[in-house]
């Protein structure tokens, strides 16, 4: 394990200390608990938005708390859920009477704890909490039939949900409306990823899985969950084509539709490669006559030092476009 760390058990807390040191104008914490991160700029009367999940995905989840996006975030150990108690503390801190929206990824542990926190917030504090669960990894399961539970994993596409919901809350919409926008964004985003190398959870100390020197795994999740297929590494254009075939078929799109595109590095993939991917995405979408409103390229949701990337498409309408374009300023996402 080759990491620039001190004791593995201090990994998360020391990372958090560094985060507060670097961004004092934007974030702070509550309940004397470094893992209960809240905005340093609370806006009275605004719907509060909170998220959370395991550590190891920076800039997810912490990095999106700030102006025009999220108000609070709880993190657990690497790849482990934070507790309901911690989420309750954040909820109390960010509520200013308009209620709180939870937006988080579709993982068992997170769901259970956010649900428990929502109950406690209601029973113990009288705070109204609504939840939107993001699950948009088309490689992780088929689409849910009407009325069925969505079993897809939530991955990088959640950033689009944060952005749209955050802008709606910032525009002082009420909780139902903010929830509606978040649900709309979640319903219109699709993601797929590919991994080339595993990552090492510091306290585990060894790679989460093995993969050959010339292999890739298409559809792998951001904790190393099994993907759709493992095979020989292919040229970038071919990989992107396979991924987009799946993503685009899932909505489906018609000629003239408009999207926002998120190209996301999983940890150790150079930006150069992400732009080579961007180039092919643009060709592909032009062929399908899908218009790209805006590209986001970089690391938005990682798996520690995994090599690989994901592509997320958000299908836009005028409403989502408006909220996507709104300004925001957080430790990792600034848009003017």
């Amino acid at each position, binding site marked *: 394990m080759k990491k620039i760390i001190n004791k593995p058990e201090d990994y998360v807390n020391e990372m958090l200390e560094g985060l507060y040191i670097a961004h004092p104008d934007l974030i702070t914490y509550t309940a004397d608990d470094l893992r209960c991160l809240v905005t340093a700029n609370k806006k009275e009367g605004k719907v509060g938005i909170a998220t959370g999940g395991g550590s190891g995905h920076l800039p997810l989840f912490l990095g999106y708390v700030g102006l025009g996006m999220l108000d609070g975030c709880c993190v657990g150990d690497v790849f482990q859920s934070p507790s309901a*108690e911690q989420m309750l503390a954040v909820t109390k801190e960010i509520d200013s009477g308009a209620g709180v929206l939870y937006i988080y990824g579709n993982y068992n542990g997170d769901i259970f704890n956010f649900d428990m926190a929502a109950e406690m917030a209601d029973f113990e504090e009288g705070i109204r909490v609504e939840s939107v669960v993001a699950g948009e990894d088309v490689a992780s399961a088929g689409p849910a039939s009407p009325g069925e539970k969505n079993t897809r994993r939530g991955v990088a596409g959640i950033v689009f949900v944060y952005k749209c919901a955050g802008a709606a809350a910032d525009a002082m919409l009420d909780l139902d409306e903010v929830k509606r926008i978040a649900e709309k964004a979640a319903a219109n985003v699709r993601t797929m990823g590919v991994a080339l190398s595993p990552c090492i959870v510091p306290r585990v100390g060894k790679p989460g899985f093995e993969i050959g020197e010339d292999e890739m795994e298409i559809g792998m999740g951001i904790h190393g969950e099994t993907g759709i297929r493992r095979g020989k590494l292919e040229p970038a254009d071919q990989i992107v084509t396979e991924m987009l075939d799946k993503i685009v078929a899932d909505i489906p799109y018609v000629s003239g539709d408009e999207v926002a595109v998120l190209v996301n590095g999983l940890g150790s993939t150079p930006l150069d490669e992400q732009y080579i991917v961007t180039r092919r995405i643009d060709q592909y979408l032009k062929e399908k006559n899908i218009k790209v409103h805006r590209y986001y390229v970089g690391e938005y949701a990682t798996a520690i030092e995994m090599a690989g990337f994901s592509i997320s498409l958000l299908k836009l309408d005028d409403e989502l476009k408006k909220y996507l374009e709104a300004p925001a300023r957080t430790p990792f996402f600034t848009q003017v």
Partner: protein
Amino acid sequence: MNTIYLIKLIGEIKDIMAENKDYLIQLDSVVGDGDLGLTMSDGYLAAYNAISDGTETDVGKLLYTAGKAMSVAVPSTMGTLMASGFMQAGKVLKGKTELTDYDIVELFSAYMDGVMNRGKAKVGDKTFLDGLNPALIALRERIDKGESLQAAANASAKAAEEGFENTATMIAVHGRAATRGEMSRNLKDPGAAVAMLIMKAFAKSLAD
């Protein structure tokens, strides 16, 4: 039976989880992320520590406190589910200071309800429930027939073990194991092993 007994029961569960830490890690490493041994031993220890001073006489409050402590200590899937079980049992038994054999059945039944309300899984989904459910059926049957609590507990421990073994025929639809789909068949469910261990500790708590 009162809170003193419950402290003993939770103490036995804490001990058996500690003894089986590596076994649970090993089971969870195959289908999940391998933390189950840590979370269960840490979680029940936290639960035990929160109630072991013996000052609480309300059975319900004691169970609720144990659950809350566990949820703070180990917010993993099973940690939160076990916490939800305790908290639900606490709600149902609130106000009591003495427990009949029927109340003990009620305790496990409420524990199961707590897990089901939180996890939304059904029996047969290859989870903890598939260990606890047969145990609960056996427990209730024996008590209804008028057998001793010890005999009923022994039978329920056996049923839990069979339930655990049986999970090797099921397909996982929840949690990390579900991402393996058909490949999850043939593997026993780690959460069901936890149910088996709980029921074994229960039998033991009556025996000594």
